[in-house]
């Protein structure tokens, strides 16, 4: 990519921007917040354009710089893995690149991603502050039981403007990003029982015993 990749943004700088910029100014992505408020970042990164190369597999960071610091990556990984932990069917979310995906998402120069970046970064700040307040350690360093307890606080739906509104919106958004990142990988697809995307000589429709079990045998007309 021709866009120069700036150094990763220091988390303290990010927090400072967020606190000083005010909610209304945060509708753009984190990288763009730098304009005028932080060391020179070069031009705002563009998207991948209307005619991107489709065939070669892409890596997060190919088109626009990622923005998570190491500390944010640890926090994101910890939260991802509470949301989708390893079990007997599949590994945890962070094991299949979900942190890279979420970093790519909140760093992307598209309006929907920028709106999510605002929610996610505010949530990270809330989560660490709450963790320190309750347990004396940032979220990533809290015990498994403490992490779980914090997620139980955030998970119920809370109206915007209520004390837990921001945390609840963050958790729901982060949960969906985590699930999207996980289930769109071959590992996640296998866990779901998606068995397509392979060429077949013929298409036979659903198995006959399933059709019969659902009482649909009479519907098979062609």
């Amino acid at each position, binding site marked *: 990519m021709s866009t120069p990749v700036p150094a990763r943004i220091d988390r303290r700088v990010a927090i400072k921007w967020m606190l000083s910029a005010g909610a209304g100014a945060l509708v753009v992505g984190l990288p763009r917040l730098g304009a005028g408020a932080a060391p020179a970042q070069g031009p705002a990164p563009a998207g991948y354009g209307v005619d991107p190369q489709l065939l070669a597999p892409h890596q*997060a960071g190919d088109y626009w710089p990622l923005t998570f610091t190491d500390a944010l990556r640890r926090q994101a990984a910890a939260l991802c893995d509470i949301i989708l932990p390893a079990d007997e069917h599949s590994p945890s979310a962070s094991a299949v*690149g979900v942190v890279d995906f979420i970093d790519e998402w909140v760093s992307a120069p598209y309006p929907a991603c920028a709106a999510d970046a605002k929610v996610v970064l505010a949530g990270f700040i809330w989560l660490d502050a709450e963790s320190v307040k309750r347990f004396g350690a940032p979220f990533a360093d809290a015990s498994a039981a403490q992490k779980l307890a914090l997620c139980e606080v955030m*998970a119920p739906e809370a109206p915007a403007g209520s004390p837990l509104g921001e945390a609840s919106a963050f958790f729901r958004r982060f949960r969906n990003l985590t699930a999207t990142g996980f289930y769109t990988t071959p590992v996640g697809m296998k866990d779901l029982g998606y068995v397509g995307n392979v060429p077949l000589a013929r298409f036979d429709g659903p198995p006959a015993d399933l059709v019969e079990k659902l009482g649909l045998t009479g519907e098979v007309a062609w």
Partner: protein
Amino acid sequence: MAFLSPEDVSEKYDVIVVGSGAAGGQAAYTLSMDGAKVLMIEAGRNYDPRTETAMFNTPDQAPLRGASTPDKPFGFYDATVGGGWTVPGEPYTNASKEAGREFKWWRARMLGGRTNHWARHALRNGPYDFKPRTRDGLGFDWPISYEDVAPYYDKVEMLIGVYGSNEGLENTPDSPAGVLQPPPKARIGELLARQRGRTLGIPVIPIHRAVITRPMDHAAIPAKLHPGNATAQRILAEDMQNRAACFWATQCGRGCAIRANYQSTTVHLPPALATGNLDIVVNGMVREVSVGPTGKASGVVYIDRASGREHRASARVVVLAASACETARLMLNSKSARFPNGLGNSSGLVGKYIMDTVGANWGGQIPLLESLPPHNEDGAGGLHVYAPWWLYKEQAAGKLGFARGYHVEFGSGKSMPGPYGPVVPEDEGRTGFGVKLKEDARRYYGSHIGFSGRGEMIPNEDSFCELDPTAVDKWGIPVLRFHWKWSQHEIRQVAHMQRTFADWIEAMGGKNTKRPDADGTHAIANGGFIIHEVGGTIMGSSASNSVTNSWSQAWDVKNVFVADGGVFASNADKNPTLTIMALAWRTADRILDEMRRGNL
């Protein structure tokens, strides 16, 4: 002869075809297979689905897991190149920003145009659809009937390959025996929708789609399509052998490298190029049709997108196939002393009566489809079944409160997981995390069904396009300004769709998480959003009530023809592409006849 740069274009052409999609591809195919020398000018870049289609890529190989973005609104792997809802440097405007008054215009800038990504739904208009005013007093009758078009539907279906069945339903035409390819088996959710739809009186039958489920019958079809033309038969037979049948994987919207579905670039253009009669200039943005001293078109003026330089090309006949609105724009921009209001616009009707398809969606979760054993449901990369409009009698009796019908497209099953929304939807009250979320995902994945209503819009005086008085594109060419307004016929139709779909969800044992919108105003998709825009150069019975005659020939300029959806005098609920191709073939036959007679 093949792909030329503007500098290599000579003056030897019989016909210039502007555009390379369904209309341009079909017109160029028919003309060149019959010996006419054709120059096709496409505004976008060259594009080869055989080498550019990301057939098996998974979402994790794409930026943002392939999610929709302003750069690729239908997702990263959608075939559309160079466009979408916006095209860089080529704006359009809306006269009103009011809710329900906006028109959205999808454009591609690539060889083959929008045929590269379309849904491949290939439905025939029925007899009623050509004479709607006769039936209910609204809109316009076409100057042609189903019988005029039917032979061309047959030919197009044989040429491109269409799967489906003949069910003998009202205004849902059958094809002659042997024309259609076998339809694919229905998926489990489709079978359930069929069974439960019956309790509501809704028929579910195989849809017709331009996907081949068997190899093309290269021994028989060429002789039927090109009787007495040994060269055309040989070329088509060879080309048909290079098309593979569907291998039951990958979404058609990405395009098809094995040429199992129809796109202009895989079906129309290869044999047309093989005749040696077709030249193609890509990256050529046609600005206007030029007019000679006698008032006939002399050719076109176009901008080479690469250099920005202006070029001219000349021919005996000009065929406009740039898409309905782009063709109207081109005619409005073709101003001369003789045609001060634009070419072919003595009626003042160029740009008028733009219609889209009426669209609304509804979805639900079906407990019966939870936790089903894994099996491959990819199928033909799109719909296998649909519900054609079924309430003609109730409508004719005035019982529905809206005049025209809709068909229902629906999707279900374990399709490839993508970045389309929560895997386990929260609006169904499932907000868990941890191992529970993984269990829920396994249980609920593939248990949803989504319905899309696709209905007929009646042309009206408030839905049209014109040249914006000030805005221009990056070459200084005036751009379109759209005006849009739905009538109560469309808004009530959408309310009916939503009620029907909610009932259908319940009939399948599902529960609706919200109530249907009682008046339809909020549920109706924006104009243009279904990407079925037609009209703007409608055909009619006289030069005062239409832009083109029954041969899609401009009333005012006899060597200019419109091959795209611009000529539609109504927009039946049936997806327009098959009718565009049938009419383009018919128009091309007329051009060939008139050239032979010395009339062009």
